[in-house]
Every structure is written in C-alpha cells, then in structure tokens.
C-alpha cells in the first residue's frame, strides 16, 4: 500500500495519461498550501499555456478514498474529470487583484485564530481582536466550486501602498454595507432540518430549542454563511444586538463561518461554556474551521468584544468602583454633618420641622377610618 507521499508522486507522474490531448504539454506541479489553522494541504496544479490560472486540486480526500479501497485508476479518472470540469479558458485579469482601485469594493475580512495560524499569518497583514486575527481577502465572486477569494499578502500590500489600518478601514466599510444575518437558533435549525416546516407536535421537534418569547440562542453570520464569524466585527450589528438583548451578551465561537450569541443570564457559567466550546470543537468542527476554544463577551458599555475572563475582571472592577463611590458619598455626607456646629444643626432641624408643619395636609377624621373586613 502506498503512503501519502508515494500516492501524490504517482498521481503527478501519471495524471496526463488520464487527461484529454490538449493537456499533453501541461506543466504538472505538486504544491503544499497552508490553509486556515495552519492545516497544510497538498494540491496538484496542472497548468496549460491557454490560461494563467488553474485550479489546485487537493489530494487528501482522494488518498482517503484510496485507503478505503477505491482503485488507483478510478481515483485518477476522478482527478482528471475534476481538472477538466474546472477549466478556466480565459486568462485571469491579474489587475483584479493587484490594482487597489479595482479591489477596494471587493476587500473582505476573515476572522481566524491567531495562535493556530502563526505560519499562515507570517506573510499577511492582519489586525488583532483579542486572540483572534482579522485577515483580508479579495472577493472574486462565485464559480462552480463555490466562492472564490484571493488572500491579501504583504507583497500585495506593497503594490497597494497602504497601511494595515487603511486596509482594515476599507474592509470594515465593506462589511457594514454587506448582508449580516442574526437569527434564532430555532429558525436556523428549522430551515436546515425541516425546509418544509415542522408542526409543534412533531416528535422530531425535541432536537430544536424551545419556541420562546425571549429566545436563548442566536446565530450570527453573513449573507453567504462563509467566513461569517466576521459579523462580530461590525460595530453597528453588535450595538443593535446589545440593545435587543438588554446589554452585555455572550459570544460562542462556533466556527470561522458563524458565532452563537447568548443573552447574559445567571445560568451562564463561563467555565462550563468554555468546556462546551472545547468539546464541540474537538468533536464536531473540522480542524480547518475551528475559530477558538474561548468564550467572548460583548461589553455594551465600552462597545467592545472581549474575552469572557477579561469581562469578568471588568465587571468586578466596576462593582468595586461603584462600592467605593458609595462609600465616598457616605463619608462625605458624614464629614459635612460633622463640620456643622450643633447650633447650626438645631436651627436646620427647626426650619425643616416648620416646613413640614406648613405642608401637612389636614385630613378629616372620617377619612382616617380604617375598614376592617
């Protein structure tokens, strides 16, 4: 049985035998590509002279099929088929990426974990938000395989001749003008699991969150639901959510594609939430799509997203300063009382009593009667 390295070499050496004649002179290259969370994938690039652009076909899933018993010949036929289907006949206009004026409206951001992406971030401008990194890309629209984006690298930044702050501002403006979705978890799941709707007495509804007047879980993402965790970077959206939920709220980093928002309630224990995020990440989220193992909170007072443990410190500090303020007010009142002479305090009391006497309402005796039932 071939190992992965032997498999990829064999694919590269023999793929032309499975491709149509026009690929006879094509250049075949194997290349490792660093994807999100520093996941390295090996792709095969089959370039012809007809176009300056070619799809990179990742070989990991094909190797998995090979290990599961699919024949090498069938796999080669599938790879060749994939390459032909994704043929791009025309040359790609490189200025769509290199010319800032053409790019400006298409700059999008992606939110990823900084610690898990040290290699990926090495050649890319980025902005830190707590332990997350905002990276930037150019949205090139849809093709048959999905949405095409091209990452903005340090070398592209040299061509653009702008700073990371300027790039961030462009991306944030575009984000503010893009579609953002904030829906209850129940609505999202109903749409995914029961596109034709579900009746309240359907036994399958046990897997949905209850239908409540004040829902306890929301999904925040973008219109394409791709790299939608960036919605938490839009200040207006976050302010609106805080208004709707009555102040600070919790953000669970469910993946790079969306986050889950929870209103702040006494049930919420940060440690338990963090354990839950870690469990779901480990068991249900593909390594490439994991965003973070931490819980975040939106500080509605500071209008800022912070790590939940930092928020706890802030709340404690605020409470302590409130306590100190009250203490200060009390001691100020006490000291002002002490500073007055006994004579002054007696005359103040007398004046107060006289004022009360004048304003007292004379209530007829009848009205004062109490009814006993």
């Amino acid at each position, binding site marked *: 049985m071939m190992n992965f390295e032997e498999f990829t070499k064999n694919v590269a050496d023999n793929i032309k035998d499975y491709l149509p004649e026009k690929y006879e002179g094509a*250049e075949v290259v194997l290349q490792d*590509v660093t*994807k999100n969370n520093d996941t390295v994938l090996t792709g095969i*690039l089959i*370039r012809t*002279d007809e176009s*300056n*652009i*070619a*799809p990179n076909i990742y070989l990991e899933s094909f190797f998995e099929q090979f290990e599961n018993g699919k024949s090498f010949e069938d796999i080669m036929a599938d790879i060749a088929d994939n390459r032909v289907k994704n043929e791009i006949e025309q040359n*790609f206009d*490189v200025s769509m*990426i290199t010319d800032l004026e053409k790019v400006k409206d298409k700059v999008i951001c992606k939110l990823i974990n900084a610690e898990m992406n040290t290699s990926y971030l090495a050649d890319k401008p980025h902005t830190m938000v707590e332990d997350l990194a905002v990276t930037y*890309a150019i949205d*090139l629209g849809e*093709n048959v*395989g*999905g*949405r*095409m*984006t*091209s*990452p903005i690298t340090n070398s592209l930044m040299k061509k653009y001749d702008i700073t990371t702050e300027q790039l961030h501002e462009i991306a944030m403006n575009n984000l503010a003008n893009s579609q953002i979705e904030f829906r209850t*978890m129940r609505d*999202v*799941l109903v749409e*995914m*699991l029961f596109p034709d709707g579900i009746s309240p007495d359907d036994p399958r509804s046990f*897997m*949905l*969150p209850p239908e409540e007047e004040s829902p*306890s*879980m929301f*999904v925040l*993402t973008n219109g*394409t*639901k*791709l*790299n939608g965790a960036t919605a938490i970077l839009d200040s207006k959206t976050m302010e609106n959510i805080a208004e709707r939920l009555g102040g600070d709220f919790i953000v*669970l980093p*469910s*993946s790079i*594609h*969306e986050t*889950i928002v*929870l209103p702040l309630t*006494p*049930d*919420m*224990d940060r440690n*338990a*939430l963090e354990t*839950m995020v870690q*469990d*779901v990440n480990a*068991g*249900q*989220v593909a390594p490439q*799509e994991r965003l973070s193992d931490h819980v975040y909170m939106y500080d509605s007072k500071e209008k800022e997203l912070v790590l939940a443990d930092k928020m706890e410190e802030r709340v404690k500090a605020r409470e302590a300063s409130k306590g100190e303020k009250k203490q200060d007010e009390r001691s100020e009142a006490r000291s002002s009382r002490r500073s007055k002479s006994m004579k002054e305090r007696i005359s103040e009391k007398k004046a107060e009593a006289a004022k009360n006497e004048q304003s007292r309402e004379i209530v007829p005796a009848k009205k004062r009667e109490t009814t006993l039932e």
Partner: protein
Amino acid sequence: MKKIKTPNIDVAENRADRKRFLAYVKGINSMTENTKAKTESRRKAARIGGKK
C-alpha cells in the same frame, strides 16, 4: 518556457453545519437544566432548614 503568473485563489462552499449547532443546543439545554436542578435543590434545602 513561458512564465505563468498564477494568483492564489481559494474556492470554498457554504459550510453552515447542523452537527455543531445541534451539539450547542444540547449543551445549552443541559446547562439550563442543571441550573434549574441546582436552584430547586437549594430551595428544598432552604425549606428544610427553615422548618427546623
């Protein structure tokens, strides 16, 4: 050989995934149930304490 400039373009599909959503629903529900149970047992304990 002709030098070909190849821009790096990622292609990705919509990845919203029911599995992780259902896992979170289950997790939050059980957290809420646990809190309810704890509150109830504290109330019971307080009632018992009050009777003494």
